[in-house]
């Protein structure tokens, strides 16, 4: 068995004295682990840092084997991530979300969203917006997508400022005002791609996606939302 693909390094763990098991996220082969021989050498350690883009070749005798990766560097992002606390928390949040996906199962839409988010992570505001959008894509990919295009009550497409926690559908200002205390806020940057997001908007975005992620994804698996996500939100508020 052999394939070639591009990918992003999500994490790695030591294996023996000289090798490493690398966790890669690829467009065609999903989240895939493999052994990198000599992965703890000085030359390879620089390449095998989470966040870096690489070209990978995977080989194994049988498909169900762990297999070995031969990895060549493409884009080095780890150093830029390391400079910023929010970027590191943001990357760890994204990696934790991707670990919810089954191994070796391609999720091209999530990969595209991940690739869009990565270069923006060193910018706290832009990076946080991308994480909220990534979480919406993740929910949709897992079968729990929110409908933020029209009002669940009136069918209108204007002034959508709330989301129903029951249906996951948008609600207009007019229809939602009487129930405002029970509805989730829909920040403008989730409706308009170019809209700027304030700290309150980002908090509302994280509250929105966090609510549905918790209900549909994390609680059924009896796990908590990633602690890095909480640290990121706290950092953005401070």
């Amino acid at each position, binding site marked *: 068995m052999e394939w070639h693909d591009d990918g992003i390094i999500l994490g790695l763990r030591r294996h023996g004295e000289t090798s490493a098991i690398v966790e890669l996220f690829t467009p065609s082969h999903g989240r895939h682990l493999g052994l990198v021989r000599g992965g703890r050498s000085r030359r390879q350690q620089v390449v095998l840092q989470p966040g870096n883009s690489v070209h990978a070749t995977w080989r194994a005798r049988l498909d169900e084997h762990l297999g070995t990766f031969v990895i060549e560097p493409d884009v080095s992002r780890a*150093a830029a991530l390391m400079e910023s606390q929010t970027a590191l928390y943001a990357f760890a949040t994204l990696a934790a979300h991707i670990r919810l996906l089954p191994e070796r199962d391609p999720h091209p839409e999530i990969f595209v969203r991940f690739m869009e988010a990565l270069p923006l992570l060193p910018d706290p505001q832009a990076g946080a917006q991308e994480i909220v959008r990534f979480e919406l894509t993740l929910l949709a990919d897992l079968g729990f997508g929110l409908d933020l295009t029209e009002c669940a009550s009136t069918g209108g497409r204007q002034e959508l400022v709330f989301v129903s926690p029951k249906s996951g559908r948008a609600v207009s200002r007019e229809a939602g005002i009487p129930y405002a205390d029970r509805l989730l806020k829909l920040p403008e940057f989730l409706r308009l791609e170019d809209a700027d997001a304030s700290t309150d908007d980002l908090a509302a975005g994280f509250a929105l996606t966090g609510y549905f992620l918790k209900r549909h994804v994390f609680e059924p698996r009896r796990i908590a939302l990633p602690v890095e996500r909480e640290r990121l939100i706290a950092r953005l508020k401070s």
Partner: protein
Amino acid sequence: MTSATSPELDRLIQLLARLPGLGPRSARRAVLHLIKKREQLLVPLADALHSAAEHITICATCGNVDTSDPCAICVDPRRDPATLCVVEDVSDLWALERAKATRGRYHVLGGTLSPLDGIGPDDLSIAPLVARAKDPAVTEVILAVNATVEGQTTAHYVTDMLHDADVKVTRLAHGVPVGGELDYLDDGTLAAAMRSRTPF
């Protein structure tokens, strides 16, 4: 069929083969060498191992390994009590000591945060570090962790935890190593070195 080696030697070979850098073949060679140098190597090694197993302990203050608790570094009056140098592992502490890089005291975290390995904050010695940093005598905490994504994530987490302690938090510089040629450095290190440039 009888074995060519006695059960005692087999056990010795098996145990040595479990050491880092040794496999069954190299362990067998090491055992043969020890037997040939019985008086010069085997007996002193056995004594040293016995003594180490008997006396070596982990310092409850800093996490260093030594024959006493607190360790020799923690009780050394010539050490600067104002500086705490945080390292991932005892091997890092030894590296800094070899380099005589700091006269401060140390704190060994015992690893880094690693989601893939399931290592969280509770698995590291972070709470004792925060308690030590709150000592009024401590004015600076140096985060001497590895320049890896996991190391730096841990460093940022520790910085957050030290928020309430009245200490200056510093970290090791990132950039061009001594003897490094720019042409051979990776893009990320070069960019980090450029960002961290200092007046000259």
